[in-house]
């Protein structure tokens, strides 16, 4: 068994129009820029993208939006330093938004990966984000029922990986990565260093390979924040 992918283009070419894609990262931290840019080269359209944010500047998810590839964003915080790609299209009614509290977003993705179709959370109770959702009382307190979130694909950035798909992450770049790996039918991961099985201490594996379908080595990956400071634009 070898889950190695040999080119970024091959890695993302399987993603069709209309797909739902989870993309790792919190702002630029953990954003799989090379995978996203390879996807932009393929230009599938009408995508639903699940990410904490909604892109920043003119690269990464913001560039996907500028290329009119995204029909809907599911995120907690679609405002960034330079969110204009999303903002303009949202205010013009050209892109749909599902706003989800950040902890609920994380838990819904985990639930999708863990086979839990619904769960109750105190988060958003009594607010407009709970409208239309079932509410139930447990032990005297009210909770909102939330549903799992799954995706056709996940694009994730990790630090070290092996050919079985075992992964470690870099610092807070971990964020949504381990959850999204669990919740997508096809999880594609870019790693800064691809190793043979056994090279990663079993105690330190964060994402076990069972959650990963393909890994591709991208040495010295770009950092979204650095690209934006340099006012990079893609393509």
């Amino acid at each position, binding site marked *: *068994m070898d889950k190695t992918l040999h080119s970024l283009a091959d890695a993302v070419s399987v993603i069709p129009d209309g797909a739902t894609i989870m993309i790792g990262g919190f702002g630029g931290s953990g954003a799989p820029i090379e995978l996203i840019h390879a996807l932009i080269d393929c230009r599938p359209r009408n995508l639903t993208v699940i990410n904490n944010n909604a892109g920043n500047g003119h690269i990464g998810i913001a560039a996907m939006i500028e290329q009119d590839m995204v029909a809907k964003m599911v995120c907690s915080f679609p405002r960034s330093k330079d969110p204009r790609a999303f903002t303009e299209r949202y205010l013009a009614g050209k892109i749909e938004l599902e706003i989800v509290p950040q902890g609920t977003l994380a838990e819904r993705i*985990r639930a*999708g*990966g*863990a*086979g*839990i179709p619904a769960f109750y959370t105190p988060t958003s109770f009594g607010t407009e984000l709970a409208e239309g959702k079932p509410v139930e009382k447990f032990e005297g307190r009210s909770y909102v029922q939330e549903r799992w979130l799954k995706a056709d694909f996940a694009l994730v950035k990790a630090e070290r990986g*092996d*050919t*079985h798909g*075992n992964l470690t992450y870099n610092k807070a770049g971990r964020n949504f990565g381990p959850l999204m790996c*669990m919740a997508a039918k096809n999880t594609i991961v870019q790693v800064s260093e691809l190793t*043979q*099985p*056994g090279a990663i201490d*079993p*105690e330190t*594996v964060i994402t*076990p*390979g*069972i*959650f990963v379908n393909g890994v591709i080595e991208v040495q010295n990956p770009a950092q979204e924040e650095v690209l934006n400071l340099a006012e990079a634009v893609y393509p």
Partner: protein
Amino acid sequence: MTQIDDIKLSNAQIAWRAAQDIDDGAYVNLGIGFPEMVARYQREGCQAIYHTENGILDFGAPPAPGEEDWDLINAGKKAVTLNPGASFFHHADSFAMVRGGHLDVAILGAYEVAETGDLANWSTGRGGVPAVGGAMDLVHGAKRVAVITDHLTKKGDPKLVSKCSLPLTGVGCVTRVYTSLAVVDIEDGHFVLREKLPAISFDDLQALTGATLHTTDTVGDLIVPEL
């Protein structure tokens, strides 16, 4: 029934047959006891990755006697070793793998399997101390849930039945049964016979089965090496 005892497969042979259906790179959970035997008969060139409920992926063969590390055990509490590429995780992550549909196949034992796919394998319903372990999670988690079992109980009653009489482990969950006499799929609420021992006639096999055996196309010969 003595005739049946002469021709029927041994547990090792049933395990061997089940192992033939496991693909290279498949993620597999083997139930405690008899199903663990399946790992011995992995096909040449096929490297399955074994999951154990207590938080290991890609564990390997038992260690040499005296070399046991009792923090490195499987769900049956037997000492194991690690293969390169193994990982550890806690119990909630372990059952996220199970419940979340990430395992390719789970192979379990059975007291009874119904033509509806219902499985009874955790309680004889006779009192004593109940104990369920991870069986109820596994039957609703793996992409494919297979059973390995003798075709008959020790008393000679069919284990493949129209409806389970014992407490259920899961409803409509089993898709294939490897028995000491046959390989039977469960499709749309029916038993569909795929393979049988050449030495037993269809009618004799049907007589030893508690519900109708359907067939489609040709029924294959269940041929298993001496083990």
